[in-house]
């Protein structure tokens, strides 16, 4: 690990000021950034600890919730309002990492975490366009079980590893950002970028900006859940995960939200499938047809082609469960 300076910010303005210029990085729980520093993937010269900023979880005037960026993942998952009104969010967080990591990890840090692509993490032995732009991608012809089947580019096929962000995507969360040029709000579905030719540019956050809070609109689903499929029963990243919310009235889908994890470079909101299903019947045939359309553009690799079928089966099972038609 390189020598690094450490400062703790006591206010948003101070954090912005401390991080401005230089190669300073904002530090939440450190559960990803510090690992990457140890591996030499990240080499910041200074760290600005922002865990002292707001970790409050409060109700908004419109009936949603506002979660401070410094809120610990475990606190969010345990919060009564979140468990009762947004079960998919609580479940997504509990499906990720380990209890110890969730106790440390912050909401802001979770949004900013980087891919776990094996080649991205191997500074000494592998080429990676995301880590070293223009160097090439060793994942494409290598181990790509955990890689994207949709939304990737020739430059990068890595997936975003978060579980929480998948639920936030399905919930239409909005990310509140502060910075030297003022505050703004970015919808979560636009927050993470697709790799295109610049996989190193991962989010819409500009230099000098920091995440202040995550805003969740009032609940719009009668039922919601999160299902994660992985290579061991816990402490593994998703091969496929589904966050889904559903309201069915008289056999017709009134409201629906679907997002996938483990299949794309960002939490993959299945807009096409939602549009196809909204207003239609809540049947497994409809679910399967809608997702086939959603994944029509998928470009699987030999190591991950199974994910197309896995995504279809998992979504269908989740929606069937939520619609209650299996009872």
């Amino acid at each position, binding site marked *: 690990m390189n*020598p690094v300076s450490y400062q703790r910010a006591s206010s948003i303005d101070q954090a912005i000021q401390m991080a401005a210029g230089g190669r300073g990085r904002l530090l939440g729980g450190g559960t990803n950034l510090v690992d990457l520093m140890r591996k030499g993937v990240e080499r910041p010269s200074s760290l600005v600890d922002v865990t002292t900023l707001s970790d409050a979880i409060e109700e908004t005037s419109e009936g949603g919730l506002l979660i401070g960026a410094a809120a610990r993942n475990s606190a969010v998952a345990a919060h009564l309002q979140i468990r009762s009104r947004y079960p998919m969010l609580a479940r997504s967080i509990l499906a990720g990492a380990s209890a110890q990591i969730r106790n440390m990890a912050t909401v802001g840090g979770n949004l900013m975490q980087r891919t776990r692509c*094996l080649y991205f993490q*191997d500074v000494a032995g592998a080429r990676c366009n995301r880590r070293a732009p223009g160097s090439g991608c060793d994942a494409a012809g290598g*181990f790509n079980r955990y890689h994207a089947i949709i939304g990737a580019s020739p430059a990068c096929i890595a997936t975003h590893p978060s579980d929480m962000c998948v639920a936030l995507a399905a919930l239409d969360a909005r990310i509140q950002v502060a910075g030297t040029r003022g505050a703004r709000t970015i919808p979560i579905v636009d927050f993470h970028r697709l790799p295109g030719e610049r996989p190193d540019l991962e989010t819409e956050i500009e230099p000098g900006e920091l995440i202040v809070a995550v805003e969740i609109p009032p609940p719009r689903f009668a039922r919601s859940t999160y299902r994660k*499929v992985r290579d061991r029963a816990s*402490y593994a990243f998703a091969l496929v995960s589904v966050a889904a919310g559903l309201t069915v009235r008289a056999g017709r889908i009134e409201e629906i939200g679907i997002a996938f994890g483990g299949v794309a470079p960002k939490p993959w909101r299945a807009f096409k499938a939602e549009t196809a299903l909204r207003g239609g019947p809540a049947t497994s045939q409809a679910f399967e047809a809608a997702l086939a359309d959603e994944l029509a553009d998928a470009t699987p690799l030999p190591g991950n082609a199974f994910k197309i079928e896995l995504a279809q089966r998992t979504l269908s099972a989740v929606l069937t469960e939520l619609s209650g038609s299996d009872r």
Partner: protein
Amino acid sequence: MSRMQNAVVESVKTVLGWVPAQWLPGGTPDPLILRRAAIGRQASRLDGPEKVRGQARFAAEVAMDRLCYASLVHSTVTLGRITRLDTANAEAAPGVILVMTHRNMPRIGTLALIGLTDLSAVGNSSLPIMQEPAVRYNGQVVAAVVAETQEEADHAASLIEIDYAVDTAKTRFDDAKDKARTPASILIEKNHVSVGNAERELGRAPHRVDNIYRTPGHNHNAIELHGVTVAWQGGSLVVHDATQMIAPSANALAKLFGLKKEQVRVLSPFVGGGFGGKGLWDHQVVAVAAARLVDRPVRLMLSRDSVYRMIGGRSPTEQRVAIGADADGQFTALVHTGYSIMPPYGACPEQYTLGTRALYRSKSFEIVQRHVDLDVVPNTFMRAPGEAIGTFAVECAIDELAHAIGIDPIELRRRNEPDRHPISDAPFSQRALTQAYADGAKRFGWERRLAEPGARHDGEWRIGMGCASGSFPYARMPGANVRITLRRDGSATVSCSAQEMGMGTATVQVQHAADRLGLPVEAITFEMGDSALPAGPMAGGSSQTVSVAGAIMAATEKLTGELLRLAGNDSPIAGLRAGDVRLVDGGIAGINDPSRRESYRSILARAARDEVTVSAAGSAPLEMLKFAMHSSSAIFCELRVSKVTGEVRVDRLLGSFDCGTILNPKTAASQFKGGMIMGLGLALTEETLFDERSGRIMNATLADYHIPSHLDVPEIDVMWTGIADPRSPLGARGIGEIGITGVAAAVANAVFNATGKRIRDLPVTLDKLL
């Protein structure tokens, strides 16, 4: 191993075949088999409280004055030569004391590979260690930095710049199969075994299966990372190591650094998991050399990444198993052949076919292993090397054949149960696998299994049961020495440079010595973990317990003679000879006339002695050559497979073991369960991701290399026959490794029973079940 060795071993076995059993070790069953008090009792580990309180000192925790810290640099290419080496920035970095590369590393020879002929030969690799610019595998150590703190050493190591001229490396298993070599022997067994004409028998068998099974590479992941704290004291060397081979390591380091044996002391009182990986590798040698150059004590603890790069694991294999059976299911042909990696500079042959020779009767056999030569870190022994993955192939094949014939797989095994060793015709010393199956099946509820695959459901889950045999050979190592000191106050100390990797070495030997010496367990101290003590053998091959026990037996015989001599003519036991007495209740008593007895206290007092000390070595383990000595097990598994996702969840696992006398049910159950959990990893999750393009391991972390998590491990039930082996000390056979064997096959067979899908390549991941 050579043809010469085959000839020697074969002729010894032949001669021993003519020698009456009672002349050999184990010829008369160990009297303690019938007369035991502490042995067989449930007892907690003696070192438990120390470990729980954090007082047990591991190798990388030993405090020393002026200690400095080392960090390693690994090659990032696979085959080639260093063409530029710039250490200037590292040398100028804060706290750096030394940068050591092939340029300034002391000139030393190479390690002798682990072998059975020379007990000081314990090298896992015979490649030169930082002696030349050549690089032979990806991850080989090319530089070491020593600094005042670990952080400074790690940082400086990252500043070393190296350029390589890269050669084309052999990294593709399938490509290298064409040039595979067929060794003459595998360990001490002849490699190629051909009985009858198996291919012809297979061709005309009414029932047959013939399939290829694949197992991936695996890496060692002991909780404790490999670590060493080294100090030169004058011309002598003290090495605090995490090792399974204390005395042999001391000998090997002495040889390598031109020292006398007594100038090297290796201490290793506690090891946080060994599993075959804690041997002598490059890091101890580098630390010793660095400590000499800086003239200060050096600590080198490997990172998890370094463990993957420079400590070998289990070789991948491709195995063919074919079985032919007649109309009654009796085997007419058993074929087990295959490929595994063994570079010429490595020591471990991954003996996956050895167990197959003793498992079933068959009219014909064709068994042979071929070694694939790749440019990789040499693979090494990893819990039940050979049997862990050999049983996967064979026991899946048995299940497939049973399904094809339409009979219960346990019944098929029973029909082919051998009454003598199927190849050598040697008698089994003891074997009750059929009973282990019967007991296990009853406790598990095997009769509830439906033979038809896919017949049981629970919601989205298909439910299945499977079983498989496990096996592991008995071994007792030559060269086990102990010292016993018996004091007038009725206490005794037993000393041996034995190893404790968490399994309860001292605990069990205290129980043993108490019964052997006729003393309460509280009176016994077992000293171990130090090469200054009488040399014990390495802890490997599940052999340590009986090897040390054999030496304690020999020393006790000597002690008995010494006590009889000291007792003299005025004692109630005067005139009795060693064979006429036993040690019981703190003294010596006649076997035929127990009223003739005298306490140790009385004997030593009369002789005006405070204590008496004897040293002895265990007898040569000839019983292994005269008898077929194997432990075996029946593993049962019940699991669920999701119809939606293909995820496998194991609900129940039961192991029914036939391993001779169980010396301590508590530590034994822990060993069995630990092995079975490792078997679950082998079955479902573990796989070294070796990138054949680069020759590099890509998942060198516990996040990316999936050992089972807590949630993957179900309730595990273990039971045993407890039938003593009349040919071994205490009637015991090793139990450290057998737990892992058979588990992968039991899981894969249960998956078949649940889904109708045969998965013949491990691990059984969900994509294979969609």
